[in-house]
């Protein structure tokens, strides 16, 4: 019986080997969808809709709202827009598979508003090599701003700018006080820490953490015992909420500064009762603001994505829509990816909900500037004179 198995196995493997050699030239095609035929431009997105990162996946709705808004005005470049968004649960392995589906099966024109640093990190090189535009990802990770990525267009301020904004503010208003930074120990938190150190100089206590941590008592106790007066948090929303609540329960009230992704979700004022007085870096107008750019977004959300609150995460999606629109607006048929990329690279001081964006053939920079909000009486106010311009293309 054994010899029979071996014989059939040998035959099978020889057969397979021959087949694979025969198929050698197949499957080498370029990415489909490079040119638009038909009257719809299909955009693809991966965003977590389940799992602990699901709240930031709300950017999908901002993007849908933008598309609804644009289509109601007749579309762009004579075509309508359509979005296909998949849930990758913030897992890079899922993102890889889903992006392949979007590109090869659904034949999208571009990947827009892809949410997350590790998730987008998994696919950006492949997409760039396949000449598929990757626009306005939900991340400020420095890897996306490297020169030479012709098809990758970040739109956020790079994470180091986030840190520099915090550091500059602290230097101006709280100089000489002992400061600490609690940061997520990855490609999100570490660049922010680096930015803080660049503009502030030294930091007295640095506390790394991972998102799976739920109890920050020891960290807070340590900070309190060390007499720290200013705490900057490079954290995600849930961890930020936990830390602030822990501080309140331990009767510890330093000056607190959060980063943009930890604020600006609806319900933050309920989740953190001690939020008043806390600062937050931001590159978008605060929710509920009277800024006309925000109102345009909020109105469109009410109309085209009802039931989904106009918060920061949805605004990220809106931003992605705006940048994509700018690349398509002036194009004439045939609409190709290369034409799209070339058009994006002509944008100078292009105004979006996140401020001005600059792209050139040498640099795809993203939004230049951040400022600070402060929580006052249940809403966020913009702190005057807190703006910071981290642009290299000033």
């Amino acid at each position, binding site marked *: 019986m054994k010899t029979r198995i071996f014989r059939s196995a040998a035959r099978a493997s020889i057969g397979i080997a021959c087949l694979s050699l025969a198929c050698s030239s197949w499957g080498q095609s370029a990415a489909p969808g490079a040119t638009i035929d038909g009257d719809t431009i299909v955009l693809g997105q991966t965003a977590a809709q389940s799992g602990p990162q699901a709240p930031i996946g709300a950017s999908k709705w901002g993007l849908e709202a933008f598309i609804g808004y644009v289509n109601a005005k007749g579309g762009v470049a004579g075509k309508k827009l359509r979005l296909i968004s998949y*849930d990758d649960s913030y897992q890079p392995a899922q993102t890889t598979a889903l992006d392949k589906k979007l590109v090869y099966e659904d034949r999208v024109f571009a990947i827009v508003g892809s949410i997350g640093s590790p998730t987008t990190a998994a696919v950006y090189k492949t997409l760039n090599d396949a000449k598929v535009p990757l626009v306005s990802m939900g991340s400020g990770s420095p890897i996306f701003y490297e020169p030479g990525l012709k098809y990758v267009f970040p739109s956020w301020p790079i994470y180091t700018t986030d840190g520099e904004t915090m550091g500059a503010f602290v230097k101006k208003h709280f100089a000489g006080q002992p400061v600490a930074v609690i940061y997520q120990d990855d490609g*999100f938190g570490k660049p922010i820490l680096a930015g803080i150190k660049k503009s502030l100089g030294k930091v007295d206590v640095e506390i790394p953490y991972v998102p799976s941590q739920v109890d920050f008592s020891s960290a807070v106790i340590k900070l309190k015992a060390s007499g720290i007066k200013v705490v900057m948090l490079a954290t995600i929303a849930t961890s930020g909420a936990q830390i602030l609540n822990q501080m309140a329960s331990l009767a510890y009230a330093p000056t607190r500064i959060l980063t943009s992704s930890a604020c600006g979700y609806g319900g933050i004022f309920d989740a953190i009762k001690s939020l008043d007085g806390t600062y937050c870096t931001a590159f978008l107008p605060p929710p509920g603001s009277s800024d006309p750019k925000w109102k345009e977004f909020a109105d469109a959300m009410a109309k085209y994505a009802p039931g989904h609150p106009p918060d920061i995460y949805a605004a990220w999606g809106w931003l992605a829509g705006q940048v994509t629109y700018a690349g398509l607006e002036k194009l004439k048929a045939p609409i190709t990816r290369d034409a799209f990329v070339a058009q994006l690279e002509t944008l100078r001081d292009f105004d979006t909900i996140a401020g001005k964006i600059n792209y050139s053939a040498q640099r795809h920079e993203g939004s230049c500037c951040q400022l600070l909000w402060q929580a006052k009486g249940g809403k966020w106010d913009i702190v005057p004179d807190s703006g910071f311009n981290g642009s290299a293309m000033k």
Partner: protein
Amino acid sequence: MPQRAALVLVALCALLPLALQTIGERQVYWLFVVSEFFVFAIVAVSLDLLMGRTGQISLGHAGFVALGAYSAAILNQRFGLDLLAGMVVGGVLAGVASLVLGFPATRLRGHYLGIVTLGFGIAVDQIALKWDSLTGGDQGIHLHRPMLLGLDVGTPVRMYYVALIALVVTALLVYCLGQTRIGRAFAAIKDSEIAAAAMGVPVARTKVLAFICSAFLAGAAGAIYAFLAGFVAPENFGIESSLLFFAMVVVGGMGSIGGAIGGAVVVDAVKNAAATVSGLSLAILGGMIVLVVLFFPGGLKALLQRRRRAAAPVSGLDGVARQDA
């Protein structure tokens, strides 16, 4: 599983890329998906070797996969190591690492071992994240185009065949292992360690050997996955992956190679399909697992064995792990 049926399946899988030619460029996605099935099936078979054949639990198997994937990725990124070498190195490294678990395993039973392996999986994940000078941290590592003994296997079709051949070889290896003296020792240990020891089976050593073999295969699978996806990051190999591999083996039916492969394909297929239904992916996956186990408590392998079921009733001595008595 009947031999002829297995051969037919393998032949069908070998011919699939030819059939996919008809859908043009869309094949890139489908070839990738099925290649991924094959890789996970290898992991499931390796886990079944441990759980189904020697009765030892591992809830951290993704840790071995990660070790294999990362060693292949790091060596490929820095030294251009090719696919075969990556598989060997990955497998060996994982096998050596399994000694960390193998020895405590000899003294621990059941749930103790399960939790310890869980910890192993978590530890590998956390260390991969922390030691970013080696592993790139959460930014991960991008691999170069995969080469196999000088041949470029970077196309979707070629990677597909690499994964398929690897799966067939794994299945054959595990099957043949089951027929050897070591395989019989595994089965003896699973039924009753004391009886096996009384028969002269070196229980501790055999258990460790099972761990090493299982870890080697899982590590090799990890290396293939790294080349297939072109990217490794810690999140690929977290506790959710370990628990899913565990579910794959049980859903498929323990002690059965075909069951393990079937379980892997079903679970992974549902996971992929659920991802396109926004927000429901976790619930759908969980619901599917619950339903399958409720209807097939012994696993999906029951479907394969239905025709061979004897009329004899299940005796009370069957299944030491049963609840009653």
